[in-house]
């Protein structure tokens, strides 16, 4: 018969620590993003940031050497790809310039005010998540620099994630590939809206609301109205798909931002509209958050969003 006295002391300590761990998990989950857990995390991040800075600068030569070595093998292929990309971008730039002139003329004709600009804060990635399961980045700007919770973070490619925790000097950014992240997106080509969901290290999952819609490979997905400012490039469709009757359309998409090699980022000074946008992460009101006819209205705005410039334009906001 089992008695408490039968177990040895280390096993007793082990069981006690397991119970304590489970109690911590329960308390942290019940606080749901607030309380003691958040206070401790913010404190730890503040205290640990200087250690990370020192270690990062001390180990930079080692990391640089490794990166240079691994880049050697891909230099030739990268060169060819970049040349093709430059040619394509030059062509797109010419088209965009003529379109911008036309949009300005139409705005003046219709009496529409141009979209308001969004300020941005440049930051450097200080550290990554401590485990392979963490889809987070720590950046070297915090509330002292104007960074706030929920602000979108972008790089030169597109959306990286959003700020989920802020201390005075550093902030934590949750990447769009985190499985708990759901983003309202719009296909730039057709205006169809849907939801993009992270799946960790793999491609993201796109689910469209319109069952008659079709997507082709390479379709650019941009943010729709909601948690993020509309029109920020998020991902490109990986596989073409057409919905079967009665089912929603599901396919995969690759993020356009270089999530594995980000170094410098920009935090967009933008706060979502709580009154009009439900929390997509709760998945409670997914279809209602993105009106099906919003695509055509904001499509034009998306075309004129210079999201790779210092000041990002906010377009297509809910009137």
């Amino acid at each position, binding site marked *: 018969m089992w008695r408490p006295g039968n177990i040895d002391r280390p096993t007793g300590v082990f069981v006690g620590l397991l119970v304590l*761990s489970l109690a911590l998990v329960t308390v*942290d989950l019940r606080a749901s993003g607030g309380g003691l857990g958040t206070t401790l995390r913010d404190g730890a991040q503040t205290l640990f940031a200087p250690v990370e800075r020192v270690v990062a600068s001390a180990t930079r030569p080692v990391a640089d050497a490794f990166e240079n070595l691994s880049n050697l093998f891909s230099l030739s292929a990268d060169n060819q790809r970049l040349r093709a990309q430059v040619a394509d971008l030059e062509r797109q730039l010419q088209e965009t310039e003529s379109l911008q002139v036309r949009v300005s003329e139409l705005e003046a004709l219709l009496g529409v005010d141009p979209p308001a600009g969004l300020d941005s804060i440049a930051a450097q990635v200080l550290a990554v998540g*401590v485990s392979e399961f963490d889809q987070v980045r720590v950046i070297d700007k915090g509330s002292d620099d104007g960074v706030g919770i929920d602000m979108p973070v972008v790089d030169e490619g597109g959306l990286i994630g959003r700020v989920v925790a802020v201390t005075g000097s550093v902030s*934590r950014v949750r990447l769009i590939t985190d499985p*708990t992240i759901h983003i309202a997106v719009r296909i730039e080509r057709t205006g169809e809206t849907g939801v993009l969901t992270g799946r*960790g*290290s793999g491609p993201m999952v796109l689910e469209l609301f319109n069952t008659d819609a079709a997507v082709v490979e390479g379709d650019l997905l941009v943010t729709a109205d909601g948690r993020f400012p509309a029109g920020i490039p998020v991902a490109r469709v990986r596989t073409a798909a057409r919905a079967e009757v009665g089912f929603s359309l599901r396919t995969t998409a690759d993020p356009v931002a270089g999530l594995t090699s980000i170094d410098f980022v920009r935090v967009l000074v933008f706060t979502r509209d709580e009154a009009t946008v439900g929390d997509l992460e709760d998945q409670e009101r997914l279809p209602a958050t993105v009106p099906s006819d919003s695509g055509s209205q904001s499509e034009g705005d998306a075309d004129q969003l210079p999201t790779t410039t210092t000041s990002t334009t906010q377009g297509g906001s809910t009137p």
Partner: protein
Amino acid sequence: MKLRRLVAVVVIVLIAAALQTTMFARLRPFDSAPALVLLVVIAFARHIPAEAALILGFGAGVLQDLLADSPLGLWALVFTSAAYFVLRFRDRLEDDFSLIGPFVFAVTAGSLALFSVLGTIFGEKTLADVGIIKKVLLPSLYNMLLAALILPFATWVLGAARRRTTPFEL
């Protein structure tokens, strides 16, 4: 455990966490990195007293929880379990050194798999990650390779391989 050794262990755990979040953010062969903090816990748990090893596992886990995005206590539970597993088998390991590499691989893989399951239970959707197998196996492999450096280093830091004051006997 003497105060000097305790301070050394704490400092090494902190440095391991800092290396994990900075250097191994860029040094990622096959887009993966070792679970260095876990490896340090395994390395020290082989030598220090049983209760100290469990508390070290718990403390290092709490540190990782504070730096991670998961619920507070999840990594603490996993690391404490890993330390307990090391305690149960450390005497056998000293009889046969050839088992140390596979043992480190098994403990790391088991710990990461345990975290994946617990993370999913507690709403982190860790098993929804399409690269979950890779995220468990590659860090385990790297830990097994790094064990050749870290385990002797831990032994050297503690001064000797066999200075336990409370041997773990079941």
